[in-house]
Structure formats: structure tokens, C-alpha cells
């Protein structure tokens, strides 16, 4: 089961879950993913060991996709 989560004021919220063998859940996840990007979130996949990748399309083979807000110089 793959998850799309959004970091927010609750800690994080699971926005969508999908499995590659279930096209309906994947389509719902893609729609949710696009809606979050439209809200101004950035999506990324953490590869561990100091590496993360920004994604613009939902990578269906990823286990975890994280949505974050922008950062700025303080």
C-alpha cells in the first residue's frame, strides 16, 4: 500500500492510499495529488541517505510521497 501524505498542522494527514494493482485507487490518488499541488504544495519522494526528489506527477511505484509547503529565508 502506497501513501500520499501532507505535512500540516496536525503533524501529517494521509491524503490518499493506493496499490498498483488497483487502478481505481491509483486514479483517486492522482486526482488528490493534483489537487494538493494546485493548493501550492510541493511533492517529493524521500530516497533516504541525504537524497529526495521533487516530483510533479504521482509516482505510483513509490511507497511514500510527501507534500510540503514552500520554505523561505527567515
Amino acid at each position: 500500500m502506497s501513501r500520499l501524505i501532507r505535512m500540516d498542522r496536525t503533524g501529517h494527514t494521509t491524503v490518499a492510499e493506493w496499490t498498483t494493482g488497483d487502478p481505481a485507487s491509483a486514479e483517486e490518488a492522482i486526482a488528490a495529488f493534483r489537487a494538493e499541488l494546485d493548493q501550492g504544495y510541493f511533492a517529493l519522494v524521500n530516497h533516504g541517505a541525504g537524497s529526495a526528489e521533487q516530483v510533479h506527477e504521482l509516482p505510483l511505484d513509490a511507497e511514500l510521497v510527501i507534500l510540503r509547503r514552500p520554505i523561505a529565508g527567515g
Partner: protein
Amino acid sequence: MPSWSSCAGRSPGDSGLSSPAEAAPARGGAALPELANVRWRTRADDRGLRRAGRLWTLSTAAHAGPFVLAAVVLASASPILLPFAALCLVHAWGIPELYAARGARVAKPVGGARDRSERVALGLLGDLVDHRARELHARSGLMLEPGRLGTWLVGEAGALLVRPGGHRVHCYCVRATDSALPPSDRLAHLLLALRTDEVGFATVANLAFSGATWRVRRRVVRPAREALAVAVHEARGR
């Protein structure tokens, strides 16, 4: 102090570098999208960071030097002026200390409730790092993250970059734009942005201080000193 030294922002070109902020892609692929908000900046790189460090040192010397000179002149003019000479020396010593104190503030934890949302956020943050970094964060509030430019310590409202060799540290003010986030989520935002594009991260962040590691070590909150010592140790091995 250079005009870009405050957390309010840097002026164009002062990070010293090679290409416009959006021109060069990040090592792993896409550049940090926040670079679009700082188009006037050039992307940070190793050479630029060295240059920025030298500028900081020169600037500090330019601020403190006249007070040292004044102290020498006063002391040699008349013994009765020795107290004034001493005051000048204190002033000369205090200037870099004040700048270092400002830099060290980036390692301070932010306010905000450490409630259930923070526990949830902390769980996610813990999943992003290895055991060693997790333990150091539990003790210090800072997350150790080795990078190409040096060894990073990421906090909730900024980051410290210990340069290779461990002698110099750059202190960056940078934050997640959503102030309602629990503290660990703020840190996770910075950590993930750093991992996505380290150079872009150093470009977006505002440089609050660059100077000797020992100056910052004296000024950071006590739990952060251990993390800084670990980062310096790592940086010395690079």
C-alpha cells in the same frame, strides 16, 4: 557587515557565484522551486561560500579594527586614558560576539505547543533519518545531515553549515512558510528541501552569520553544542 548578512535578505550576487538561481539544475534533478522567489540570487557553490566567508571576516575586521586602533592610540597618549582604551577593546571584542550570537539563534527551537500533532510530526521526521541522527536530534533538537557543501545541522528555524575542515560555520535563517506547523514538521520541511537541492537550499536561505566555529559554539543553546561538536568532527574528516 555585508548588506546581505541579516535575516532580511541578501543583495544580488553576494553569495558569490556562478549562475542565476534558476539556471543550474540540482544534482539530483529538479531545482528547488523556491528559487523562483529569489531570481536575483546566484546559486551558492563551494567557491562562493568561501568568498562569503572571507567577506564576513573582512567586514568584521573593518568594524572591530578601528576600536583596536583607538585603544592603542588612547593607551599610548596618556595613562589616564587607559580605561577608555579598555572600553574600546571591549567594544572590538563585542562586535563579532554579537554577530555570532545572531547566527547562533538559528539553532534555537521555535515556540509552539509540543502536543499530539508534534508527536505525529516527530514520528514522520524520525522515519526520514537514521538512528544516529534521530538520537542526536532527541538530545539537541538539531538534525545532522551530511552534504556536498559541508555538514549540515538543521533546526526548526534555520540551519548551520559546518564547512569541510570544521573551522568555519555558516548560519542560515530559513523556515517553512506555514507558521502553524508543529516544530518537527518545520524541521522536516527544511530537511526535505535540503535533500532535494542542497545548493538551492543554501541559495534560498538567508545568511545570518559566517565565522569561526568556536564563536558560534559559545553562543548556541547548550543542547546544540553537542550537535555542533559532532558536525565539526564529521566536517574534519572531509
